[in-house]
């Protein structure tokens, strides 16, 4: 996983509540057996006017000119500003894969759906939750200022606006550590292999039926 430390990036809007993971990456692209290459199909049904197919070259597809990610001013954005309950619905990790592959490394929204939130941290994408009023204000500032950038510092847990305003954010310490260092969870868990074996031995005595599956 790519570490996430600091990011100064152009901000793009996804200005609606309850954006679901079907919207982030539609189902036909889930047929891939790879982890990469989802970027061109991020928000596929909103970005393009036609129905996308897996493996298709997207460069000649008709674009929806009303969709902000297609506006010239948001090209190259790496911070996505969003609304309540971002990433709800399906658990598909293809959603953070698509966001990351497109170039988004950080999302700022008032709240997230649990599974999506969790999946982001496994893929070097930092989802920041800020108060709804703050997010609303960032939306206004962003719309008013072409080239609007935010400065995100994970170590310091701050978002700094172009005017120099410093907004603190919360992040769980374990997740922060993994993201800062690009660490793989499995390696960390396997350091506790003895504890897992000990638990299993105890459980095997208490609840043997959990360990004997015979049809």
């Amino acid at each position, binding site marked *: 996983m790519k570490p996430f430390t600091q990011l100064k990036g152009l901000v793009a809007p996804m200005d609606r509540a309850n954006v679901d993971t079907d919207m982030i990456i539609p189902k036909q692209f889930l047929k*891939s057996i790879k982890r990469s290459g989802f970027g061109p199909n991020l928000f596929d049904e909103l970005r393009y006017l036609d129905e996308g197919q897996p493996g298709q070259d997207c460069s000649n597809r008709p674009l929806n000119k009303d969709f902000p990610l297609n506006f010239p001013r948001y090209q190259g954005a790496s911070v996505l500003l969003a609304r309540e309950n971002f990433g709800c*619905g399906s658990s598909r990790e293809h959603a953070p894969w698509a966001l990351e592959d497109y170039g988004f490394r950080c999302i700022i929204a008032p709240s997230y759906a*649990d*599974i999506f939130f969790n999946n982001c941290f496994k893929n070097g994408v930092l989802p920041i939750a800020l108060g709804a009023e703050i997010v609303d204000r960032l939306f206004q500032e962003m719309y008013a200022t072409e080239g609007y950038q935010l400065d995100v510092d994970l170590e310091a847990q701050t978002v700094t606006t172009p005017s120099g305003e410093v907004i603190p954010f919360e992040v769980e310490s374990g997740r922060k550590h993994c993201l800062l260092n690009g660490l793989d969870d499995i390696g960390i868990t396997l350091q506790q292999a003895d504890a897992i074996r000990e638990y299993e031995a105890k459980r095997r005595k208490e609840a043997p039926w959990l360990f004997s599956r015979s049809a």
Partner: protein
Amino acid sequence: MAGKTLYDKLWDDHLVAITDDGDALLYIDRHLVHEVTSPQAFEGLRLAGRKPWRIDANLATPDHNVPSAVEERVHGVDGIVDPVSKLQVVTLDENCDEFGIEEFKINDERQGIVHVVGPEQGATLPGMTVVCGDSHTATHGALGAIAHGIGTSEVEHVLATQCLRQRKMKNMLVKVDGDLRPGVTAKDIVLAVIGKIGTAGGNGCAIEFGGSTIRNLSMEGRMTICNMAIEAGARVGMVAVDETTLKYVEGRPYAPKGEDWDKAVAYWKTLHSDDDAVFDKVVELKAEDILPQVTWGTSPEMVASINDNVPGPDDFSEPVKKSACERALQYMGLKAGQKIRDIKLDRVFIGSCTNSRIEDLRAAADVVKGRKIAATIKEALVVPGSGLVKRQAEAEGLDKIFVEAGMKWREPSCSMCLAMNSDKLGAGEHCASTSNRNFEGRQGFGGRTHLVSPAMAAAAAVAGHFVDVNEILEGAQS
């Protein structure tokens, strides 16, 4: 000290380790695997040179990409026309073969939607922690288990370590009391709950569904309710163990037997919240207030009763909800103030991990028996949740009832719930669907989904538009 909730008890029983600031390592008893969210996880294992920690804790079956059409199914994997879908199913077969994981392959009679198969086989049991790379894993909580969806990185984590790194969720109780009105089912209850608390109402929570109405539901009904906990934002939905649970589990192929059964039952009987347990949030509903539900928008919280009108932006005070309503009406091609009953339908879908169990099919068959679907319905699909549900339905003659009514009887798969196989809506088509999500494009590009119960979907098929199922059952001719 306050008593424990059901979630507290199961959490404590599965805790391998926990740090002072609450980062926990939780043991996973059962890992269910399907073809869509697992290939990258198996690939990750291979690249790291890792092996599954406990092979017998895993059970796999293909479901999302599997065709429902009989013509495609007779040829097994080779019959899958779409090469991309086929590759994904083949990849699951190969991964399970390589790592020695038990799989119900495409033409095994036990194959089906993973959330129908687990309980049906007794592979998911009370007291377990159950995970799967699919958000509707909450279904298995109906047995009195902690069950939830995970992403592919966590699929790999569970394969490699048999554990998940987690933080404890909050406890939420949704209590439904009283007698249901005729024609009102588990699906209507859960849609009413989502309408009340919203699609983010359960974020960060494990929801326990309780109260006399829930107690009186069958296991199938409880599964329907827990299945859609995720549509209320809660990863976990659960129901306490009682006699209904035990009766359901007993004798299933993978359920414990003999001495193990007695020991298990003694433990399972403790799996309920204590009387003095404290919940972080409590929501109460009266069963008698719930009428048959129909969603009108593009989020499951956009739901109304059959007698209501479609709301408009003016019915909402928050700006975000106003604009969401406006956008939803535009996408759905509906007008504010129009009657739910006047929504005309093009297709009907009865199936999905929410509503494809035998009881769901019986409820739908009761409605269409001796009737014909409306001439304006282009297609009405009935897709059983597993090969065994299909066999049972055929033994009861339900397939004939559906076919005689003009519906299509298909092979088990996720089918038109998410349209990963060839069953999908055309742009602009309205569908009465027993599935779980009415998101934009979910059932096909530009498709318009209305979530309903199996009985209401069947009634809509007969009438060609939404109608209170009781009117059809009472003999009012369409």
